[in-house]
């Protein structure tokens, strides 16, 4: 326990804190590059269309804005993408994630997809949990600083 306690002590804090800060920044930026190399997203295709034809494109949590006979159109990052294929329970306004190869006409052939439900409830859940737990934590932090030896 002694080394563990030492790493949390005020004695080593002036060294540990900046080292950890730099390490966290490196991990943050490094992970950004990992994610960047993982999949082609629709807004990347829109920025560099010649690079993405034939590649598998992933759109996460896009909104369906139009339904057609052969497929549907979804909007992601303010950009519209036509998808060939269909999914169960598809309707305008629904939030979907899709994946498939991009054709040279700019449409995606649907290989895998999912219609996400309960989106509002999930948002509400996030706000509720952050509000309740966040305020309890802030109150506890206040108590800790008022009575550090309690």
């Amino acid at each position: 326990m002694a080394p563990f306690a030492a790493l949390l002590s005020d004695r080593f804090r002036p060294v540990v804190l900046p080292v950890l800060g730099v390490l966290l920044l490196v991990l943050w930026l490094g992970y950004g590059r990992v994610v960047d190399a993982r999949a082609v997203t629709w807004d990347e295709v829109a920025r560099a269309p010649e690079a993405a034809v034939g590649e598998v494109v992933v759109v996460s949590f896009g909104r369906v804005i139009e339904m057609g006979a052969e497929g549907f159109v979804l909007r992601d990052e303010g950009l519209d993408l036509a998808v060939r294929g269909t999914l169960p329970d598809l309707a305008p306004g629904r939030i979907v994630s899709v994946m498939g190869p991009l054709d040279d006409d700019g449409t995606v052939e649907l290989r895998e997809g999912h219609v996400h439900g309960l989106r509002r409830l999930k948002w509400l859940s996030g706000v509720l949990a952050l509000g309740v737990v966040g305020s309890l934590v802030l109150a506890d932090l206040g108590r800790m600083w008022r009575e550090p030896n309690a």
Partner: protein
Amino acid sequence: MPDLVTHSLVGYLAGFRLRSRRMLLWLVAGSILPDAASVSVLFAGRLGHRLLGDVVPAWIWNGSYAFHMPIPFALLCWFLVLWVPERQRPTLLPPLLLGGWLHLGLDYLQLHVGPDPYHPFYPATSWGWEAGWFWTETSLYAVPVLAVGACGVWLWRRS
């Protein structure tokens, strides 16, 4: 991610035997911290992208998801507890860490469209994995059951 109420309730239930109320609170806080530290930054980034365009490249915002991986998350917890009074740090770090890892364990059971979004051993390797047992919103169906369980635990702890 499953919804945050599910994460909080699972954290609360997992810590039902903790005698210290403070430790239980910080375990629950840990159970929402991975999302608070990463997904909130992602949302802020998307909003910033909409309002300001490409001022900050998307990969920088996306990088905050590193705090949703066990090793960077542990370092983040260590960094955060160094800001509380020294005497409290050893009490807060273990529940914060366990709560967060519980969150990550639950998240890794999910299913997403596209490549596996989780890299459990980052930065050692960028190998991705998820169990694919349920979609991201399915956890909401478990909330009523978890809430009843949490009420039971709350009453038991008061008695």
